[in-house]
């Protein structure tokens, strides 16, 4: 209920507010009441907060003392305090109703801190649990606290495992979690896994142990094959979602798609874009035809344009489409049919795939592009002018991902790809997110890529830009300063100057002032990735100004321990810190002792930390999981890779 949600948000907030604020909100909620009959009203109208304001009567003095609430979370002893155990001012029905509207896990965490009753109400009403690091808590503890979970999101390996920095068989296996879930949550419906190790046996276990299972999403996972998908397709009678993104898996063939039974009709989301094998098109077409609720379909590149047309005709209700190969010689009749099929997709707002997009066929998209809000061209390899032409038809675009294309050597080198970005700046004023990936050069030509001018051009035209991931070959402090002046609302600023340690190309100075400008101007910044030649000054700026920063990625930067110390000391909301190839040593590592428990994880690799430093850290902070990974060739005293996870367990069990 939109209005109800709005009220809930207004009072409980979306920020991780302190219990004090919660208390004030609660106070407001319960004042000005009349009688209890409105409980019926709210059941009927489902607009609880509004009715509560008008209706119920309670003693406002029943609200717990704020000071007590703050200390609730610190130690168990405070839970014996009278304030903690004082009965809640709300009848349970009201609280439950309110809680049922709350989805944000941060808000729910806050609610659970107010008092014992609210803690209990919250844990019984929670249906979705988010575990940001699978080693921060054991499945048993989760099952004990939350008895009614229907949906789990789990993240496993450190992010740097995406870039081959984490050894194989490191862990993050889902199987131990599944064993607990099978016992505690037999009605589990959804699993969303990121960077977890998932075997075919686990997939079969899921398919056979949870009769209500509906939704599986695997992102950057590894360890399974298409055989596991066969199990899912064959056994999950109520499956609504099968979403596979960028997993490292064995593609043994497309036969899994044919395993969906003929009476299976519930699918809403199907994403197999990252698989390489052919699937039976007949099976796919039949599946799409009978699943009338299908709203997301992302096929792989073996699906041709002609086949795509046939699928679109069956599923004009699609909201998100990932095409297959966009390169095929089409007869004019088929071209017209394809265009007509796109024309009939009135609800399309996300488009991806477009593998090897042939610019001749892109115009078929124009009929559907006015409503597009997310365009993922990162595999399309478009030239700048092709990109410009396409985005000119996408005025509603909010998110754009694309990969820089190789250009001919004889074109003007510095602005060809930038021209595409200029077009974006002028055509897409509503753009909020931009990701520019470097294309992998697979021909003899020189890749020039985008420069700072493309980024500046986008920032001029797209003032709402708040998320950027930008790979480039040159950048200047002045350009970044201009960019953040144009777009001060950045929440995610990830700049990758691809040559490590590269200075400002105009002045040859470090890029300190660039990131200084970012943190000074963008007060809402939550995530930052830095690159280029950086001294400790960058980190002084970050520590001083980036007060909302939660995630920081650093590579090939910094001059001394001071850099890391500034960040650990200054960034109060820091949750994840990942560092590679920086001159930070034991002093820096140990300066963050107080901080690490409130952080989800810290990663340091190829820095100057030694084994002794790690031992000291582990000794001082026994509640942390400290893990050292050593490369074979390295010195015994050098700690090559360290991972720290704040955990409720004393040791990470090797799965």
């Amino acid at each position: 209920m939109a209005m109800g949600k709005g009220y809930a948000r207004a009072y409980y907030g979306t920020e991780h507010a302190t219990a004090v604020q919660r208390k004030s909100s609660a106070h407001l909620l319960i004042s000005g009441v009349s009688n209890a009959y409105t409980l019926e009203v709210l059941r009927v109208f489902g607009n609880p907060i509004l009715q509560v304001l008008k209706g119920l009567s309670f003693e406002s003095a029943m609200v717990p003392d704020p000071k007590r609430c703050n200390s609730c979370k610190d130690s168990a002893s405070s839970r014996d305090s009278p304030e903690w155990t004082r009965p809640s001012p709300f009848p349970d029905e009201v609280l439950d109703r309110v809680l049922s509207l709350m989805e944000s896990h941060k808000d729910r965490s806050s609610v659970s801190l107010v008092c014992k009753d609210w803690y209990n109400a919250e844990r019984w009403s929670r249906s979705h649990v988010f575990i940001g690091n699978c080693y921060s808590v054991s499945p048993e503890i989760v099952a004990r606290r939350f008895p009614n979970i229907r949906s789990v999101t789990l993240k496993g390996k450190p992010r740097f495992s995406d870039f081959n920095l984490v050894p194989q068989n490191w862990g993050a296996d889902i199987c131990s979690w599944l064993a607990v879930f099978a016992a505690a949550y037999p009605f589990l419906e959804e699993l969303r896994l990121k960077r977890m190790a998932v075997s075919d046996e686990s997939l079969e276990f899921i398919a056979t142990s949870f009769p209500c299972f509906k939704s599986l999403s695997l992102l950057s996972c590894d360890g399974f094959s298409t055989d596991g998908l066969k199990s899912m397709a064959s056994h999950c009678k109520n499956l609504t979602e099968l979403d596979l993104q960028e997993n490292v898996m064995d593609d043994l063939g497309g036969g899994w798609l044919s395993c969906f039974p003929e009476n299976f009709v519930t699918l809403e989301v199907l994403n197999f874009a990252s698989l390489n094998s052919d699937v039976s098109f007949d099976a796919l077409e039949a599946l799409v035809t009978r699943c009338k609720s299908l709203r997301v379909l992302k096929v792989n590149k073996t699906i041709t344009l002609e086949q795509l047309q046939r699928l679109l005709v069956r599923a004009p209700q699609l909201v998100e489409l990932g095409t297959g190969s966009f390169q095929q010689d089409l007869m004019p009749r088929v071209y017209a049919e394809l265009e007509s099929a796109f024309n009939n997709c009135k609800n399309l707002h996300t488009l991806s795939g477009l593998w090897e997009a042939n610019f001749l066929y892109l115009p078929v998209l124009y009929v559907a592009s006015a409503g597009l809000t997310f365009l993922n061209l990162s595999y399309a390899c478009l030239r700048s002018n092709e990109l410009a032409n396409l985005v000119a038809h996408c005025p509603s675009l909010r998110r754009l991902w694309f990969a820089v294309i190789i250009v001919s050597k004889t074109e003007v080198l510095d602005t060809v790809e930038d021209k595409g970005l200029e077009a974006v700046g002028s055509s897409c004023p509503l753009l909020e997110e931009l990701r520019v990936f470097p294309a992998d050069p697979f021909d003899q030509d020189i890749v020039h890529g985008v420069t700072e001018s493309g980024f500046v051009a986008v920032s001029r035209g797209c003032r709402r830009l708040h998320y950027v991931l930008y790979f480039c070959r040159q950048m200047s402090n002045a350009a970044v300063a201009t960019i953040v002046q144009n777009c001060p609302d950045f929440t995610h600023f990830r700049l990758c100057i691809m040559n490590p340690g590269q200075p400002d190309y105009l002045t040859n100075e470090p890029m300190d002032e660039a990131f200084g400008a970012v943190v000074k101007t963008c007060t809402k910044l939550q995530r930052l990735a830095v690159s280029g030649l950086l001294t400790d000054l960058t980190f002084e700026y970050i520590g001083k100004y980036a007060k909302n920063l939660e995630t920081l990625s650093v590579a090939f930067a910094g001059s001394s321990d001071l850099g890391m110390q500034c960040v650990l000391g200054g960034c109060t909301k820091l949750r994840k810190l990942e560092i590679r190839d920086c001159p930070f040593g034991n002093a820096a590592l140990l300066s963050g002792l107080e901080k690490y428990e409130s952080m989800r994880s810290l990663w340091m690799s190829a820095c100057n930390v030694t084994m002794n430093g790690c031992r000291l850290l582990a000794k001082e902070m026994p509640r942390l999981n400290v893990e050292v990974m050593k490369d074979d060739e390295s010195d015994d005293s050098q700690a090559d890779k360290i991972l720290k996870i704040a955990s409720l367990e004393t040791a990470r069990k090797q799965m």
Partner: protein
Amino acid sequence: MSMPFEEHDYIGLSETPAMENSEKLASKGLNLKATELRLGLPGSESPERGNGLGVLKGFISGAKRGFSDTINGDSGKWVFTGNGGSDVDLGKNGALFSPRSVNGSGSEGTSLKEVVPPSPKAVHEKKPQISAVNGHGVAPAAKAQVVGWPPIRSFRKNSMAVNPPKSDEDAKLGSGCLYVKVSMDGAPYLRKVDLKTYSSYMELSSALEKMFSCFTIGQCGAHGVPLRDGMSESRLMDLLHGSEYVLTYEDKDDDWMLVGDVPWEMFTVSCKRMRIMKSSDAIGL
């Protein structure tokens, strides 16, 4: 905690898993500071960007080079000059690139599709130079291959690398260049031209004749058409348009067509390779 550290034996510790095939790919797209395999622009990308391409400047000489020029004797590794490639390739003017380097470190992103083995071992994580890029003449050997940099997911790297056009390696539809092979009957080796650098059939013809004139000098035509000494510029053109040779191309449907029938733009899109045929073979087109 009594035993803070336990030893675990990870299999394949920090080695690249075989399934990713990333060794080959890492040297292509990942790290563009590959030491031995460089694409050097003659007199272009200034080494003050620290990519050390200056090392290769000396290789560019003159307009015409044979295959041997492209091989640098270093343990059989290919050194690619200009836009390199396994085929000999000269741009229009023999100079490979406009000498002006605009994009500071752009060229260091050069990388090769046909990476001749052994590619530098991608898995060793060597510490690259963190200190300030000192600029000129940084030798390529100083920039070691770096694991996991730039930070692009393996999946994306692999996808891009295996995503060349379905047509053969010579032509790429819809991209910024269209290199096509040009063969000439009787010539010992083929040439490659970038169709995007020309805007008309005339330009293409004159470029081709420059390229192939060396093969026709001194040659006595099979049909007894003697060639003059001191070939004039138009001679090959006459040959091409006259009875001796015919310029043909293979289109996307794998048919051999006569050059010149369709508008230039359509030709560039549909041409996969070209062949300068002897007119005796061209009967039937």
